[in-house]
């Protein structure tokens, strides 16, 4: 199958590509990139001057299948991904049952095959049932398709277990992903510990809860030389440790979520549970450090930590409410606010959604506009205002802190393997 995407602005910051042109795809791959020229092979899509970017890659989503299909399935989650311009997502193992063996991985792979509208790669558990006690069945999970291991949602509190898992993984070359929050320092905390928590009377989680684990894990990384990826960073102290580790040449990478880049604990004054997540929203000083670290590359990429929850899990007392927010459908539009505020360049924003996350997981076949790579694209209108309305989400869940935001850019089409799978007018195209 051949198709041409013409009248596009080809935008790939990893190659400093930003010019008019066309892309020809065949057999799901890019076969030609024509700068300042148009072609008409096969099915022709006229992009009318919109931006064509590599499809976005999200290393961190929760698709709740198996076990909590009322919150999200691989079918609905990948539709949400498509609507947000994401063509590759990696789903965390904290399902029910936990993805801690080849059986569960194979079940998920089958669902991906049946229902997935974008590429999905599962992440396996580090420990059996996420209990932090003993290693999960690592080989079978990796053989069945897992691309990384993580106990995300929980921190691996046993440093010895983590050390041994990291050592073991050096024989595969895949990363461990840490959820950096010390259980004891989190305690009963439900928000950032600081002036706002002191004023509004919610129990705080100190920055140190994240910092001590980041520091510990970097030491283990230095000891094992295993790949370490640090999930959803929130604390300015953690950023300093990572900068130092990178300067030493350690194989450490990090991600940050759109909500930690855009929101602070000031939002908690409403006690709205849509601002409750782990790790918590921190202060403006942290937010600025996170944006700076993303800009400089100390933090490698943006990941949504898309965490669907039902209304029943959120519409309760703050202490009892579930942690997490959905993010796939709003990530690009809300992060573009950083470009509008001149805190981040469009180039770095797009790179941290495409090339950078692809490098973190070693996806060498995507994340750039190059001949021979997968024909996965996000097509974006940088001049289209709309209001975020959770009722229009493809996700089964509506738990977003960005409801009602006016945003000025829109993903208008998403292409996987050369085929348009989402279009703003038609919805999901299958």
């Amino acid at each position, binding site marked *: 199958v051949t198709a041409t995407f013409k009248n596009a602005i080809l935008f790939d910051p990893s190659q400093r590509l930003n010019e008019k042109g066309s892309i020809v795809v065949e057999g799901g791959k890019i076969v030609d990139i024509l700068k300042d020229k148009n072609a008409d092979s096969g099915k022709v899509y006229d992009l009318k001057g919109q931006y064509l970017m590599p499809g976005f890659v999200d290393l961190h989503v929760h698709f709740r299948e198996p076990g909590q299909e009322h919150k999200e399935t691989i079918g609905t989650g990948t539709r949400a991904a498509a609507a947000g311009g994401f063509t590759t997502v990696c789903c965390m193992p904290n399902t029910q049952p936990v993805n801690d063996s080849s059986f569960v991985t194979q079940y998920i792979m089958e669902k991906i095959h049946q229902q997935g509208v974008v590429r999905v790669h599962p992440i396996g558990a580090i420990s059996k049932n996420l209990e932090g006690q003993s290693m999960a069945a690592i080989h079978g999970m990796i053989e069945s398709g897992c691309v990384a291991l993580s106990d995300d949602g929980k921190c691996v509190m046993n440093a010895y277990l983590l050390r041994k898992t990291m050592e073991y993984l050096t024989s595969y070359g895949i990363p461990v992903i840490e959820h950096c929050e010390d259980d004891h320092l989190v305690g009963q905390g439900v928000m950032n510990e*600081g002036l706002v928590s*002191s004023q509004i*009377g*919610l*129990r*705080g989680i100190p920055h140190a809860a994240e910092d001590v684990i980041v520091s510990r894990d970097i030491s283990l990384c230095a000891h094992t030389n295993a790949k370490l990826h640090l999930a959803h960073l929130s604390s300015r102290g953690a950023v300093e440790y990572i900068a130092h580790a990178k300067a030493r040449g350690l194989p450490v990478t990090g991600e940050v979520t759109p909500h930690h880049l855009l929101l602070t604990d000031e939002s908690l004054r409403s*006690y709205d549970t849509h601002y409750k997540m782990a790790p918590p929203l921190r202060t403006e000083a942290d937010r600025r450090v996170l944006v700076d670290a993303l800009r400089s590359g100390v933090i490698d990429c943006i990941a949504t930590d898309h965490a669907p929850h039902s209304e029943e899990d959120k*519409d309760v*007392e703050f202490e009892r409410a579930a942690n997490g927010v959905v993010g796939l459908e709003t990530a690009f539009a809300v992060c573009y606010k950083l470009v509008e505020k001149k805190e981040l360049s469009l180039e770095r924003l797009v790179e941290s959604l495409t090339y950078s996350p692809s490098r973190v997981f070693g996806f060498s076949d995507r994340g750039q506009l190059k001949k021979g790579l997968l024909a996965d694209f996000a097509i974006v209108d940088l001049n289209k205002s709309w209001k975020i309305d959770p009722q229009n989400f493809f996700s089964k869940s509506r738990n977003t802190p960005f409801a009602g935001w006016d945003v000025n850019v829109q993903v208008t089409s998403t292409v996987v393997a050369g085929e348009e799978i989402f279009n703003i007018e038609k919805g999901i195209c299958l």
Partner: protein
Amino acid sequence: MDLLGRSLLDIPDLRREEILFLLSETGKLKAKTKGTESILGGHVGRSVALLFFEPSTRTRTSFQMAAYRLGLRTLKLDGSTSSAQKGETIFDTARNIEALRPDAMVIRHAGSGIPLQISKLLKIPVINGGDGFHAHPTQALLDAFTIQEGFSEFKGLHVLIVGDISHSRVARSNIHCLQMLGAKVTICGPPTLIPPLARELGVEVKYNLDEVLPTADVVMALRMQTERQNSFQIPSLKEYTTRYGITSERLSKIKSKALILHPGPVNRGIEMMSSVLRDPRCRVLEQVQNGVLVRAVLMGHILGVLK
């Protein structure tokens, strides 16, 4: 002052003049009634719902008595008889109680922010009867009234709050209220029980009680939750008392004209010795009596039965 139909969730909901108005009305009422007989007789058909999702004797009975003084009917619902255990959310419970058509609702809950969140859902006024570690505005008003009875003005007064400030809604509301009225507030306790960045709340923070005690015009001791000693916050209650208890020995360091307050209930022998409760400077029972009057004045103006 127009308090009619308004909610009171936190002290900053009130302007300084409104606080002074409530204190002055309470004073007039106290002079008129001597704090005993009913204030305005019966108001047939007016009612207030008391939703206490957290055990409380003092605050609930105080609101109840205040309602009786105004001639209001009360509708009581506490945690153990509520449908919280039956799977109904707290917000549904509040909506259902509102559908019974009370004229106002008083809410006490262990979770910070619950009265605020409920007030956004309801049309009737909500009075915060204490939420988590967040706020207890009627306690702050009754404390301010009790302080005002002892001193002519707040300006220049030094109020010392001693104890577990971190987990105290009473401390938070008192800090707001006393600062608005012009008093200087110092908080004192072990560092583990002082909120993070407390100085940014505009208070002095002291760890040595004996140093600061002689400078205080009001000494407010807070209730010590006995479980704190098992959660790495203090080594033992005995050690707490040694450092921060208002003991007989410390009484001599307190100014002769000072007031000693406690929001109750008092752990005798932990934060306060029995001898302190007998000291003439101690106004604990006065606080309880004033609480009824302050709450009656507040509810009376919110419901429009007092003018």
